[in-house]
């Protein structure tokens, strides 16, 4: 054990009595908050994934519906299902990738919904109307859970990065976590909400 390590160890031992007041426990609980909120985020995205097959089946039944938009949705979904993040590893790169594949699903879906504008029968279909309401609700849920996730991350990040915790948070493996960035799809979440 070299001198530097020894010093660190000593400093650590000296700090032990202060941990309860210096926020170790709080760091843990804030990190847990972020982790569990991440689960909520994944849940709502999964909810959207689960809706897509229903939607595709409903739309597919309509004569000469444009195949291309449907295929795009299916492909984007397949791609997005393959990207999941381990909640203990919420790095910027990971989150960015997640956001990108989900963003593709969003835009494929909004293209699909736009195409449906041209099919009045389909628009009046009860089954479709319900799916549409569910999809809108899901987009809202995604927006809400993302916002909550960002708030939790912000709490956690500002806590571990403020003095004096900024000095020792890293020793215990508390790293800065990444945020969702406001992308176009998120800003206009209920895109599928068309002229009602």
């Amino acid at each position: 054990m070299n001198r530097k390590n020894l010093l660190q160890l000593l400093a650590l031992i000296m700090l032990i009595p202060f941990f309860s007041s210096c926020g170790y426990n709080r760091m843990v609980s804030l990190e847990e908050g972020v982790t569990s909120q991440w689960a909520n985020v994944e849940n709502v995205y999964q909810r959207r994934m689960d809706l897509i097959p229903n939607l595709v089946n409903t739309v597919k039944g309509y004569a000469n519906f444009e195949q291309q938009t449907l295929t795009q949705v299916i492909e984007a979904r397949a791609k997005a299902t393959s990207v999941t993040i381990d909640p203990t590893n919420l790095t910027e790169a990971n989150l960015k990738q997640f956001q990108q594949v989900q963003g593709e699903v969003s835009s494929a879906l909004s293209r699909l919904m736009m195409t449906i504008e041209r099919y009045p029968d389909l628009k009046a279909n009860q089954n479709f109307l319900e799916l549409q309401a569910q999809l809108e609700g899901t987009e809202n849920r995604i927006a809400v859970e993302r916002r909550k996730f960002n708030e939790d991350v912000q709490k956690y990040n500002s806590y571990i990065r403020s003095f004096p915790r900024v000095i020792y948070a890293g020793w215990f493996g508390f790293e800065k976590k990444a945020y969702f960035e406001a992308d176009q799809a998120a800003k206009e979440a209920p895109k599928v909400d068309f002229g009602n």
Partner: protein
Amino acid sequence: MKKFLSPLLFLGLFLSLAKAQELPDPMYPPRLVNDFAGLLNSEEVNRLEYKLRNYHDTTSTQIYIITVSDLMGYDLADFTFRVGEKWGIGQKGKDNGLIIMIKPKVGNERGEAMIATGYGLEDVIPDALAKRIIEKELIPEFKEENFYAGLDKATTTVMDLASGKFTGDDYLDEGGFPISLIFLFFVFLYIYSGIRRQKGKSLGHSVPLGAAMGMFSNMGRSSGGYSSFSSGRGSFGGFSGGGGGSFGGGGARGSW
């Protein structure tokens, strides 16, 4: 250490203040009908308040009616969920809050309405159903500026759903009116006429079916049924505002 902390603290304080200023605060004293946009007259406000308060007192479910003429730059859904979260609508842990948010027509902007369900109500009032309530009960009345009538109907439906009087499937299938209620009505009529006959008053069969049906068809309109209530102004007590409930994005919206 103080030197390090104070800018951070200040920034944090500033940010939270700036955020808080943008969203409206609940009216004081706390109430369930927060008519910021002034769409209802005071008697209508009182009736709705009474109805919702009653429901809250028996079930702890908080149904808020909020009207605003300005969304402060937020999207309607975003605004509604943020307000719900900030006011803590619903009970903590149960998350049984519901918001009917209305932004009336202002100038060229369309009127918008939203029903937002707390986590705990997402099962009994799924999105498709919330959408249906908006399209069938709120929007048609709102188009005619009958805000009270729309809200009265919608709150009755929401209460019945939330207390399990009928299920979402009933509502969707029966086109808005549960068969069981119609059935109950006739049972009631039968018993009632039976009693009258026993008492020897000849009224028994003289309640004509037509009139009964007429009464029935009016039921939807005055389903609040609190028409005798009018003098309760300012007499509500014991409501202490939101209970710390939380929203997860459930609900639906519509516009007119």
